[in-house]
């Protein structure tokens, strides 16, 4: 029986500054099986796979990796690939302006003393493409083939490295149904040839279809491993494993004081900025009341960020259509200044790249969106600026020696408080928050929740986007669920459960307003 086990990860613990990403995780993969790995966003799946593949080298984590019964201490990806462990990331790592053949053998060139044997390369590429069922000439540029075919090239690339354990991170996230089906069939074919796979996926129907075993990870811990054949595994059963945790006092108490509807988004459609035939937001209708915290739940790529940004001065998307009504009047927010002037603010998901000017100090970041409030005849009153920034430092408890500190030197929680200050200073009526607590430790999260509650009690409408379901449940009065650019459900905050939300989140094709 022992020889049955191909890979065993024992008691893996990995800490990042301030966060325990993995806490004693165990994973056993048998030879020739498809092993599904499921969990919420941020549960630790990708971190675990990065430990396995050597992206996080030996020594940066604790615990043991046993592969074919031997302890492995990978220093980098090259070493794990040498043993036949190959990972295909969610974002494809192909070079767009190189050919299929060049991509497949990138870093693994068919060469003698540095000179590439192109005949060999093309021949081998043809064999590999046959294996994955891709009918394209080896010289075709990657940029000229679709995402589905690119995924197959990635797999061919893995095969070229004589893969024995193939790890796929959300391989079907960007694929249409035919391509997904094709890919799953390929995994089953590999299984017959003795190649094992670890499949990370949110799509539970796919997992039910192909997986032999399933491990659930939650909050960086292994919850359970199920045998798909022996155990009675239903989708509900998996969801329960993924989300089943108690809500304790992690959310500050609040007495909702909800007024009338003041923001309505009607028949909102948005197309992708580059691929203008692709609809990203599909006929969305939502409304927000004064003093209400409205959540938007959904998986990655469901279109939540795109919805918020398209409302915020059309900062995302093309061919935006639909109506935006505020206080009974239709408004048109064609650029960000109009959005700010109309009392709409948006706190970005990625504060380092989209929220802050990291090389600038706290006060300049806070005042950037509302310089007109502290300037006369276009001249900034720097003394007034200091006073305003100082008051935000006190009000939001930004922990810093001085408001002259560069925001790049602050912790995640304090950075987020600076971004919040910036938008509170713009005095919005509608504040859209995109993953406001991502990458922030528990204590700072509580403070940020309190700030959000305070803003709601002042009568502002809050649109709260989050991938963490407990947070959505703990904070929101009403929750919309999105999937594939559509609203697939609307749930009252009191009646919502994680299972309910998860069902709407994974619903494809979905009905409107469940």
């Amino acid at each position, binding site marked *: 029986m022992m020889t049955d086990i191909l890979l065993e990860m024992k008691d893996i613990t990995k800490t990042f500054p301030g966060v325990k990403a993995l806490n004693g995780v165990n994973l056993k993969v048998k030879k020739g099986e498809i092993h599904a790995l499921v969990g919420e966003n941020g549960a630790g799946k990708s971190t675990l796979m990065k430990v396995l593949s050597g992206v996080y080298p030996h020594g940066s984590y604790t615990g043991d990796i046993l592969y074919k019964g031997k302890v492995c201490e990978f220093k980098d990806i090259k070493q794990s690939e040498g043993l036949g462990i190959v990972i295909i990331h969610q974002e494809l790592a192909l070079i767009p302006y190189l050919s299929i053949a060049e991509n497949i053998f990138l870093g693994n060139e068919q060469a003698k003393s540095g000179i590439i044997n192109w005949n060999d390369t093309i021949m081998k590429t043809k064999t590999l493409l046959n294996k994955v069922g891709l009918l394209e000439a080896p010289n075709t540029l990657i940029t000229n083939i679709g995402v589905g075919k690119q995924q197959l090239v990635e797999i061919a690339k893995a095969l070229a490295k004589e893969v024995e354990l193939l790890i796929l991170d959300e391989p079907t996230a960007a694929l249409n149904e035919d391509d997904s089906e094709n890919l799953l069939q390929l995994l089953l074919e590999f299984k017959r040839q003795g190649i094992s796979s670890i499949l990370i996926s949110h799509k539970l129907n796919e997992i039910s279809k192909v997986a032999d075993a399933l491990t659930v990870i939650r909050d960086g811990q292994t919850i359970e491993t199920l045998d798909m054949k022996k155990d009675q595994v239903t989708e509900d059963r998996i969801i329960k494993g993924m989300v089943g945790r108690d809500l304790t006092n992690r959310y500050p108490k609040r007495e909702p004081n909800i007024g009338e509807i003041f923001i309505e988004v009607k028949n909102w459609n948005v197309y992708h900025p580059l691929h203008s035939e692709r609809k990203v937001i599909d006929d969305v209708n939502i409304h927000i009341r004064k003093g209400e915290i409205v959540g938007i739940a959904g998986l990655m790529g469901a279109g939540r960020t795109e919805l918020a940004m398209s409302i915020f001065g059309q*900062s995302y998307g093309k061919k935006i259509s639909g109506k935006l009504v505020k206080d009974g009047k239709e408004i048109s927010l064609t650029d*960000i200044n109009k959005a700010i002037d109309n009392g709409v603010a948006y706190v970005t998901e990625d504060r380092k790249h*989209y929220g802050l000017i990291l*090389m600038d100090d706290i006060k300049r970041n806070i005042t*950037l969106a509302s310089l007109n409030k502290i*300037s006369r005849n276009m001249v900034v009153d720097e*003394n007034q600026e*200091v006073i305003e920034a100082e008051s935000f430092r006190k009000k939001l408890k930004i922990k810093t020696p001085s408001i002259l500190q560069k925001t790049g030197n602050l912790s995640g929680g304090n950075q987020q408080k600076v971004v919040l200050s910036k938008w509170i200073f713009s005095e919005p009526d509608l504040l859209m928050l995109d993953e406001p607590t991502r990458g922030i430790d528990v204590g700072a999260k509580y403070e940020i929740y309190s700030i959000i509650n305070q803003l709601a009690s002042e009568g502002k409408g809050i649109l709260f986007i989050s991938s963490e379901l407990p947070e959505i449940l703990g904070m929101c009065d009403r929750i919309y669920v999105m999937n594939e650019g559509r609203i697939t459900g609307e749930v009252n905050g009191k009646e919502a459960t994680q299972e309910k939300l998860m069902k709407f989140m994974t619903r494809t094709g979905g009905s409107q307003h469940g």
Partner: protein
Amino acid sequence: MADLSKMFRANIRQYGMLVALILIMLLFQVLTDGILLKPLNVTNLILQNSYILVLAIGMVLVIITGHIDLSVGSVAAFVGAISAILMVDMQMSPWIAVPISLAVGALIGAWQGFWIAYVKIPSFIVTLAGMLLFRGATMIVLEGQSISPFPSGFQKISTGFLPDFLGGATMHNATLALGVVLSVILIFSELRNRRIQKKYEFEVMPIGFLIAKLAAMIAVLNAFTYILANYEGIPNILIILFVLVIVYTFVMKKTVMGRHIYALGGNEKAAGLSGVKTKRVTFWVFVNMGVLAALSGLIYAARLGAATPKAGNLFELDAIAACFIGGASAYGGVGTVIGAIIGGLVMGVMNNGMSLVGLGIDWQQGIKGLVLLLAVGFDIYNKNKSS
């Protein structure tokens, strides 16, 4: 003392280059047996470097936004040529020709700004094209010949001096008087600032520090005017430079426009999502660069008394080097007008000093290259250490 060293460390880049400039000046003062700071030489230093400093002011704005402008030398030459045609061939008055020339610079800036800001072609490519385009255009309009002489009134921009309305016999009294007037303005503005900051209950510098700082500044200022007064007084071009530095420092430090330029360079996406009109700001920064390049071209033409097809050759590289030596970041978001001026002076003093000690142009080039590399290397080393 701890405060002082903290203050110094926080601003090491700015003070660092100022200290380096002073050291370089002292070095050449010794090496040249005191010729460097002779009144005649100081005056020459200003005249020789004025057109680069004007370019550096515009260039530092461009670099702060995260761009580069390689065309300024060619644009300066082109505008010089246009002005020669207006003033020499067409006998137009400088009072009309100069504004027209500056407008031509603005148009060129708008042309380049359009491609960079709205079509999103990298500034390196647009201005490389501009560098070739306007050099070619210069040769075409000049038909390969120099045009001279400019009217003497126009040449006064670069060769004239502030008239001594106080009629000094041995010294230029007006220059000395100006030094005193500026000292008084300096004292009053510092005291006024201090009063306002106290009103807001901010921490202020201990009065001892303030007195020491003011004393040092006033000493340097008056020593400078004293040296100039020993020759012909204040060159006209120094007044132009002084006004430009004051205006641009004010715009970059105190105005909404300045904030937007820094924010754009620091993080274009975040700035855009905070309501900064990133395209428009980029566009105007290039228009401004065009105007200053035109001004630089006029100053150069006035100094030479002629427009030549070769004018402005490699000016762009000197201006860019000045900005980087003065602490601007190649990644954008960081830099000051004063820093660019100091950087320009470092280059200028080294040119002048090395010429005085008789180093050949070959050695000068090489040493300037090393200084640029070391200055930026020092900058990056400091940044890595502090983070």
